[in-house]
């Protein structure tokens, strides 16, 4: 059964997977060229000091890539299930709805993990060429809230798409947004040093929120 679901999910998301991998590679290449140009056009030490003292995040172009990819993925993965309430067919399978929903989410999360890894590896490569290890490490740590926002917004969007009523969809958008926005408040490197742990722990709650809309879908709730 898992294999069959995996195949079904793959059919839905394969173009998004390909597209997002290309987009992220494109952005990374752009940032790499951009950093290279900085170093060609300016005194390299001044670029270093600028990045360290002014705390400019040269990779801030990547800020919304994880969340954007995550939202597109969740929409592509769950909207076909909602057309004519097709997903309700799953309820006739000898497979619990909890298991199937969590497995579907798991596939999406695995894909976002892939995007996160590509992003981190790309930044590490760019940093290792032009920047001291301290700055490279700061870049890898400082993107973590953005990556967390990717995972969280994937889970939130899935729940929003799966819910059968527009009223709940609207409420979910409104009520999940302030928390997700909290992950984009940085002005420089390392600023989530003392809070990323708490944000991560709260984010774990997003892991199971899809089950409630799934239940409402099965029960045909419209409230």
């Amino acid at each position, binding site marked *: 059964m898992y294999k069959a679901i995996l195949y079904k999910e793959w059919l839905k998301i394969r173009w998004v997977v390909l597209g997002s991998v290309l987009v992220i590679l494109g952005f990374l290449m752009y940032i790499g060229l951009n950093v290279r140009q900085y170093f060609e056009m300016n005194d*390299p*030490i001044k*670029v*270093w000091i600028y990045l360290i003292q002014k705390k400019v995040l040269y990779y801030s172009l990547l800020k919304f890539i994880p969340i954007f990819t995550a939202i597109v993925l969740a929409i592509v993965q769950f909207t076909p299930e909602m057309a004519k309430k097709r997903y309700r067919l799953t309820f006739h399978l000898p497979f619990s709805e909890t298991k199937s929903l969590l497995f579907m989410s798991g596939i999406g999360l695995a894909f976002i993990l892939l995007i996160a890894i590509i992003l981190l590896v790309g930044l590490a490569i760019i940093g290792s060429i032009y920047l*001291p290890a301290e700055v490279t490490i700061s870049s890898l740590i400082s993107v973590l809230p953005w990556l967390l926002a990717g995972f969280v917004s994937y889970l939130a969007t899935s729940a929003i798409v799966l819910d059968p009523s527009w009223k709940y969809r609207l409420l979910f958008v409104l*009520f999940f947004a302030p928390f997700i926005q909290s992950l984009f408040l940085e002005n420089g490197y390392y600023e*989530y040093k003392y809070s990323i742990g708490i944000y991560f722990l709260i984010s774990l709650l997003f892991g199971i929120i899809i089950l*409630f809309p799934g*239940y409402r879908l099965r*029960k045909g709730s419209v409230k």
Partner: protein
Amino acid sequence: MTAKISRYSIIILVTVSLSILLPNLYWMIFDKPIRTPQVSFSPIIKDFVFTQTKNNNDDKIYLDTQGNSYDRKSYQALLPFSYYYNLERWGVLPDTIEGIPISISYIRRNTQFVRLRSYYFHTPMIQLYPLFESQSDFARLEMPNEMFRITNRIEFLDARTNSVVDSLSEIYNLALVEQGFQFPARYIAGNPTTRKAFDEGYFIIDAANSVFHLKQIKGKPYCVNTGIPANLNIRYITVQENSRREFYALMVTRENEILLISYDNYKLIRLPVDDFIADEMDLLFTIDPIYRTIKYFNDQELKCIVIDKDYNIIDTYETIWLPKTEWTSSKIAASLFPFQVERENARTDYVLFNLKFNGWLALIGIFLALGITVIVKTVVYRENLKENRFDLLIVAVTGLYGALAVLLIRPEPWD
């Protein structure tokens, strides 16, 4: 069962979001700026003069501690060391004050400011710095090609090749070791900019809490153990590089002491400040041709201490005003919201997730929220209160936030 747990995790998330969103919206509407009074010591009347803002508008009145009031021009005339450009323009800049001949250039040469803000102590900073040539043949400071780090040895990194320059690292490593430096460095303080009058290099605290002074003179290392006691618990150093050359740097200790490192063989001078709290207050240390003024304040009190050249106290002034927590709008907020999530704060550069509780007043809001929840659930929704008992527990803990969450995200008829 899983669906029920899922609903509660949604409700907790909604509560978290609301405790960010609602207080933010509330203060967007009701917040007002806190106008810290300007307090200065006048060398003319030898008294403090200060401003007051009337009725929250921009009309300022100018007073001294004897109750005399001044207009704007005569107020500025009392403070020649702050407003000398205006006084010169009006032709009223005194020729001498306390027997000292005064001119604009004299004032400028003998003036110095040091500012401390509480967020300086709460900001991430990568400890990599350039070492300047401090006695170059050329007038302007020049940016070197390397930056140094001090881990288990000192290393110079060439920015052009992004690699360690071993020859330079060896020389400086030896200089540090000879002075008894214990690796790694705990803290490095200096100004990595060429836009300063001259270069004094870096003050570095080693693993044994000794303070070292490192700079480059004619291409060679200059490194001294300053002999500053290791038990001071220094948390912050700001190197000054001011042409007055009275002190190299100002330090703040964990005990909120403020110490100057003087040019006289690194002798320490303690500033006479009491109950200064570095984490909560901003401080301005002003030196003019005659007096030194230390002013420190938070959002409810200000202290101003005037000292002479030998750092003896001449006069002090204190003023307090209504703190924000005592505002009516704060009291209303406290009764509406049992707590709020503080994510950003003017006293730190870090992003936070602090739950700030609002005290007993919150009980008003909690009882109100419980009442509304029970009424809506029984009368409007016609739910059986016993079925989803956790809903009421959540409202009892989170008040308005929880009430909105459980009333909007309604329970289903569970399996």
